[in-house]
């Protein structure tokens, strides 16, 4: 996906593609004797794909990104810099401090993300993995939304705005209404999804009607959404907590909070369940539904889709609305699950942008996105732990995350770095 333009821009007059000497021509020329490429060779290709192709590149990209992360830790560690000051007198100190810094960082990353062997009780020991899943939920939900638009050939850079609007709408329903949980929670979730869907739909409608580029529109809508929510948070009639001077809503009532999955000693809440369900749903939409078929057709070749009677505009709008709803659920997950003491204008926690990297790492495939969401959730959970225990700022996770995506998008670069064989042109 990452190498495909959103609109299938007319491939420039590339000799390979459009001159009459198409290279593929000879491959299965009708008058050729060796007409059919035997199926066996496809297996061969598949095998080669694994060794030279994506799977390996993905692993190497992660390693490479973590290597750069290590360098950053290394060169900013105070002990290491201290050791460097007398490096030539006693170089072993520098290496010792360096090893300490990096191993310390990765051990605490592991302890914060998967299993904390220092925890006194079993609960404390396994708490990190549940934290990882908690962080994975909004990343996955938003990643699914953005991945879905990728498949329809669209860029949804508007995750931030959609999360904010979705979260704010859910918060509004949560704090303004007083209902039994069985109605209140679903209603709040639905409100969040619906408002975010409508907000996302704006980009789709503008693209369908006027051809406005959705990248620009969604970026701009992020800011418009941010200021709208900010405004709502300063009005008591809308969201601001009564009697408060802060732009913040009242805490969520019990009846609208996503229930804990593993009891009160863990923070993991039903938002993760929502994410897993959404993964299955998006898989079905993309691979088994006619709507998803049309999304993919429009994404791969909008001109052909249009000529075959598919309403491209409707596809754009519906893709953006479903996407907005999913991203909005990420916002709902934050407000009603992870941070329930009140909605703020920072409720998106930059997940809207992180989700783009999640969708890319997951190659816009639903289960790939779930896996990527869990991986980045682990980074996040571990990153916070690392910050607390080792004093390494959690921002390093952003660096590693973005490097992973960059490397992943440029397999030839990764192969060149590791001197792997590249596939024939």
């Amino acid at each position: 996906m990452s190498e495909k333009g959103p609109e299938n821009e007319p491939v420039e007059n590339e000799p390979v593609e459009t001159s009459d000497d198409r290279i593929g021509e000879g491959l299965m020329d009708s008058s050729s004797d060796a007409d059919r490429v035997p199926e066996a060779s496809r297996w061969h290709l598949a095998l080669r794909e694994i060794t030279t192709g994506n799977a390996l590149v993905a692993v190497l990209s992660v390693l490479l990104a973590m290597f750069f992360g290590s360098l950053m830790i290394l060169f900013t560690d105070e002990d290491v810099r201290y050791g460097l000051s007398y490096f030539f007198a006693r170089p072993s100190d520098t290496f010792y401090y360096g090893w300490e810094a990096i191993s310390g960082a990765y051990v605490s990353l592991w302890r914060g993300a998967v299993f904390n062997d220092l925890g006194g009780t079993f609960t404390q020991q396994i708490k990190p993995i549940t934290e990882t899943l908690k962080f994975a939920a909004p990343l996955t939900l938003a990643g699914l939304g953005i991945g879905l638009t990728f498949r329809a050939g669209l860029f949804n850079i508007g995750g931030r705005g959609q999360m904010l609007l979705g979260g704010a709408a859910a918060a509004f329903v949560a704090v303004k209404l007083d209902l039994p949980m069985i109605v209140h929670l679903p209603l709040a979730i639905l409100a969040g999804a619906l408002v975010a869907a409508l907000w996302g739909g704006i980009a789709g409608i503008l693209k369908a009607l006027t051809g406005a580029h959705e990248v620009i529109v969604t970026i701009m809508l992020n800011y418009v959404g941010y200021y709208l929510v900010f405004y709502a948070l300063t009005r008591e009639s809308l969201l601001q907590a009564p009697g408060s001077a802060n732009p913040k809503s009242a805490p969520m009532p019990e009846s609208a909070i996503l229930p804990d999955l593993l009891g009160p000693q863990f923070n993991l809440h039903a938002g993760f369940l929502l994410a897993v369900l959404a993964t299955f749903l998006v898989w079905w939409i993309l691979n088994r539904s006619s709507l998803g078929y049309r999304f993919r057709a429009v994404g791969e070749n909008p001109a052909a889709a249009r000529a075959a009677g598919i309403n491209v505009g409707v596809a754009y709008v519906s893709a953006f609305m479903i996407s907005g709803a999913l991203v909005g659920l990420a916002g709902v997950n934050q407000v009603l699950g992870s941070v329930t003491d009140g909605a703020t204008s920072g409720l998106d926690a930059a997940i809207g942008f992180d989700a783009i990297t999640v969708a890319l790492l997951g190659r816009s495939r639903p289960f790939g996105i779930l896996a990527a969401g869990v991986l980045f959730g682990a980074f996040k959970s571990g990153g916070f732990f690392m910050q607390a225990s080792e004093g390494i700022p959690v921002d390093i996770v952003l660096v590693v995350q973005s490097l992973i995506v960059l490397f992943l998008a440029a397999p030839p670069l990764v192969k060149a770095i590791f001197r792997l064989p590249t596939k024939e042109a």
Partner: protein
Amino acid sequence: MRLALRDITKRFGSLVANDHISLTVEPGEIHCLLGENGAGKSTLMNVLYGLYQADEGEILIDDEPQRFKGPGDAMAAGIGMVHQHFMLIPVFTVAENVMLGHEATGFAGKLDLDAARKLVQEISERFGFQVDPDALVEDLPVGVQQRVEIIKALSRHAEVLVFDEPTAVLTPQETDELMAIMRQLKESGTGIVFITHKLREVREVADRITVIRRGTVVGEASPQASNAELAALMVGRPVELKVHKEPAQPGERALVISDLVVADEDGHVHVDGVSFHIDAGEILAVAGVQGNGQTELTEAMVGLAPHVEGSIKLDGREIVGRSVRKALEAGIGFIPEDRQVDGLVSNFTIAENLMLNRSYDKPFVSGGSLNLKKLDTFAKEKLAEYDVRAPGVSTLAGQLSGGNQQKVVVARELSRDLRLLVASQPTRGVDVGSIEFIHKQIVAARDSGVPVLVVSSELDEIAALADRIMVLYRGRVVGIVPADTSRDTLGLMMAGETPEGIES
């Protein structure tokens, strides 16, 4: 300047596009390179022009071996190229296009546009072109754009000029003028390589003919050789130049188009008051040089055009104003002119492509969910029926050859209950074997009582398929004439003239 290619070999992966090809061009000689679509002509010329690097072999100029790292080197060595897809920048003026890459400059790199204007005027006068140096290229007719390409090459003192399929976009008259220009260039000592697959043109100007097939030189031919001989050499077997078809049995009036006006997003009118009709079981072929409204006419017929006025009645029901989906559901089959752009989703499998126009309802969709089993069975049937050479129905369409891709499109469009077939350039860029097959399918559709509209810029195809011929020029109907109208008459009509005895 004597140009020689010696044993040029160019591979793309496992495919050998050029296999030890040799040829020479003497000064003042027109050397024709004849071959089918996909024979390797353009690859060879791209090697010569430095766009590709040859894997083996060498290029010699006056017996000196050359190494071209890019087009700049080739140009410096005196090779100029008139590309099939013009290498002109639409939003630049003629002068800017001509000067690009060897700009005359003043202080601080300031462009000297006056020098460029003078250059354009000087070369124009030498060859009697009428080209305004300050016109934007995008505003110029195609024929004039081609002259800008020629001026561009000559302004760099090219001594060998390569013309890559130059006549595809020209009227027969413009083609004649181009031939005259070629002869004039030849007189002045320029060597010319003329790449084409059109036999008539080859025989008209060539001094020598080299035929290539599947990346290798299969022989030289003399300009005196007959069409049939040349075609057989080019294709590798005797070719039926005509499709056998019974005379049409026109039924009742199926399609009636009246006063059709089609404009694009920018308000330009492409089809300007066109009226005609097609009877059931009849093929109406639309002739005309590309860009005279044919594309827009077909697009209007399937609901793709943005601004349509007038009426298109199919079986008495109005099509204008309907969505594409509704038009297709009314029974229109549509083979678009560019399968890569409008016909196929190249990253979809053959099976997925076969349901592209039926993604809303039965047979492949029920309750919003795909019926993959039914699709698979259907696709397997069609693969066999339409002789699509592919490993299986899950092969990606993009991996097929042009001919097989087109067969997938034809299979998809003909496998519904049709009330009208609109086929635009149905065999463009397709090998001869597939051309014959596709033509037979179209005639078979006609014989089953479907009215057919065929648009083609190849007069051979028009002649092969038409029951009646309609000629379009600048968005208007020049005339509707019988299928046996002579080529010369059609040529005049394509240039907008109405010959005696033809009512428009």
